[in-house]
């Protein structure tokens, strides 16, 4: 389970919309499964169908989170036109098995976010609590 406060969750949807037509991405940081901070990172692919985080920004985010006593809980990205489930590419590129992968979908009328653990190409959906 991952818990995200409503303000951050709303911001993630806003970021996804602001980034259209491209995918957006970032990190969620916190403690004990509860998100306290989010980091909006550059998608260096600048693509509606792909994302790659700017690695220099990744380092800055990780170090800032550490200084605040948080750990990186989740990597998130948006799917502008497809559902909130990991694509084959998402699964193939999920190298960090310790992190939660969160997908924000803007497809159709049902904007949603879902979270997944991806280990050895196996995908397991986990609960997202917004409070």
């Amino acid at each position, binding site marked *: 389970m991952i818990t995200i406060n409503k303000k951050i969750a709303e911001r993630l949807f806003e970021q996804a919309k602001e980034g259209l037509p491209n995918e957006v991405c970032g990190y969620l940081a916190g403690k004990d499964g509860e998100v306290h901070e989010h980091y909006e990172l550059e998608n260096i692919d600048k693509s509606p169908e792909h994302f790659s985080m700017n690695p220099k920004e*990744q380092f800055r985010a990780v170090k800032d989170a550490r200084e605040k006593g948080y750990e990186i809980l989740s990597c998130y990205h948006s799917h*502008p036109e*497809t*559902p909130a*489930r990991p*694509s084959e590419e998402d699964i193939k590129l999920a*190298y960090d098995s310790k992190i939660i992968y969160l997908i924000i979908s803007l497809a159709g009328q049902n904007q949603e976010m879902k979270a997944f653990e991806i280990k050895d190409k196996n995908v397991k959906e986990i609960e997202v609590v917004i409070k």
Partner: protein
Amino acid sequence: MRLTINGKEETIEKNSVTVAQLLTEMNVEMPDMVSVELNGDFLERENYDGIEVQENDRVEFLYFMGGGSLIG
């Protein structure tokens, strides 16, 4: 050799090690997909084999994060 790795002090049982060897020493999975900073400087992946880590260096590493929605 004492190092600070991802903010934690670590000791490795070697006096000389390259960045690539350090990643192996730390049992990093998929080292080809890892970005590294050494003492605050971002390293290009092709240099991991040639750069040696020194006593008391600060090393940060993290995984490439990417994906796509092409096949949703």
